[in-house]
């Protein structure tokens, strides 16, 4: 099948890292007066309600760990333990004077994978996030087809209908 993949320009690849919380390794340090005066509010709605991992003694309470330097900035967690289980882990990201709490896990399982943003190129069939206007889309598509020497003569039907006049910023 004749097809013109959209090829975008190339740059560098990035690195990857993983945020992992190990259920049986208590991250609890002696509770220092937390510097994070900020809200512990989270936007997690209907967060899975999964129970914390088993093990541990009957301790209960909340404590903030040391700030640990990582390639991605300082990492610090606040852990809530209830009845010998880790009930909640909050990652406290300290940026200047604006500490901010993001609940990453309620079950001490690794939940979000973190990596650095990289810029890539690849031949793709479609791009998500590219809300081009019709005119620029058509122009871009046409130039890509031209570069590939794409010809419509072999039965592929390509119709680029761009509206007369304005009205691109209309609707959805």
């Amino acid at each position, binding site marked *: *099948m004749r*097809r*013109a*993949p*959209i090829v*975008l320009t*190339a*740059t560098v690849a990035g690195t990857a890292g993983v945020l992992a919380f190990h259920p049986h390794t208590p991250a609890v340090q002696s509770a220092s007066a937390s510097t994070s005066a900020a809200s512990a509010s*989270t*936007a*997690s*709605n*209907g*967060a*899975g309600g999964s129970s914390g991992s088993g093990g541990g003694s009957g301790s209960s309470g909340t404590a903030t760990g040391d700030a640990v330097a990582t390639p*991605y*900035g300082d990492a610090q967690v606040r852990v809530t333990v209830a009845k010998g289980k880790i009930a909640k882990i909050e990652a406290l990201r300290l940026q200047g004077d604006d500490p*901010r709490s*993001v*609940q*990453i896990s309620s079950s001490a399982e690794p*939940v*979000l*994978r*973190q*990596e*650095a*943003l990289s*810029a*890539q*190129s*690849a*031949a*793709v*069939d*479609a*791009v*998500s*996030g*590219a*809300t*081009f*206007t*019709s005119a620029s*889309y*058509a122009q871009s*598509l046409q130039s890509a087809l031209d570069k590939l020497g794409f010809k419509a003569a072999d*039965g*592929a*039907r*390509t*119709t680029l*209908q*761009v509206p007369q006049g304005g*009205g*691109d*910023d*209309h*609707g*959805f």
Partner: protein
Amino acid sequence: MLSPVLEVRHVMGMPVGIEIPGEGADVEAAFAWLREVDATFSTYRADSEISRLDRGELTLADCRPEVDEVLTRCLALERATGGYFSARPAGRLDPSGLVKGWALDGAARRLGAECFCLNAGGDVIARGRPEPARGWRVGIRHPLEHDCLAAVLEVQDLAVATSGEYERGAHIVDPHTGRPPRGLLSVTVVGPELATADAYATAAFAMGADGPAWTATLDGYDALCITSDRRVLSTPGFARHRAQPGGG
């Protein structure tokens, strides 16, 4: 002989592209549906049912049944997202955040094809495999370097929705504040239905820095969030959609 289809038309205020490999299928029903949806739901049209409903000129009972269907679904999403997805994000009735994906899901059903890639307004619906050896390759646009990709996926039977700033500028608001959220450059949600993926992406983006953690709670949908400080946070299930290096 096989005659593939590659059709791009401007409808609902955006270019809608449909690619169907193999024997050419009929796209007319799909585009007709999108025009109907636009006429009913466009908030840019004073005479659309949604605009007239908002002005009180119509009651819900006067409207097409799809209006009730959409608004009911908006309510459910409002609850599921703690109000970060809203049918009234800036005060007036505007379910566009759901309508776009919902309309495209409907268009996909009206293609009557088992293999296609539908691409519209930054969203993608991929069905089947374009070639036996590979799935549909979908790039996620880099939020800062617009001629590059942030990630490449290889998918089949999946919807991909991305919310972010991109070309149209700040148009997503946090319904609680009425102002643009801060913290994220973009959110991509993947899953079985575009309408839901789109609403979740919009909601997560509206949550700002709290969005990524919320996406980890979603059932049946995975997400990749790009933060303003250039970190990429993805849910564990997202990795299986990534294209393998050296593929394609």
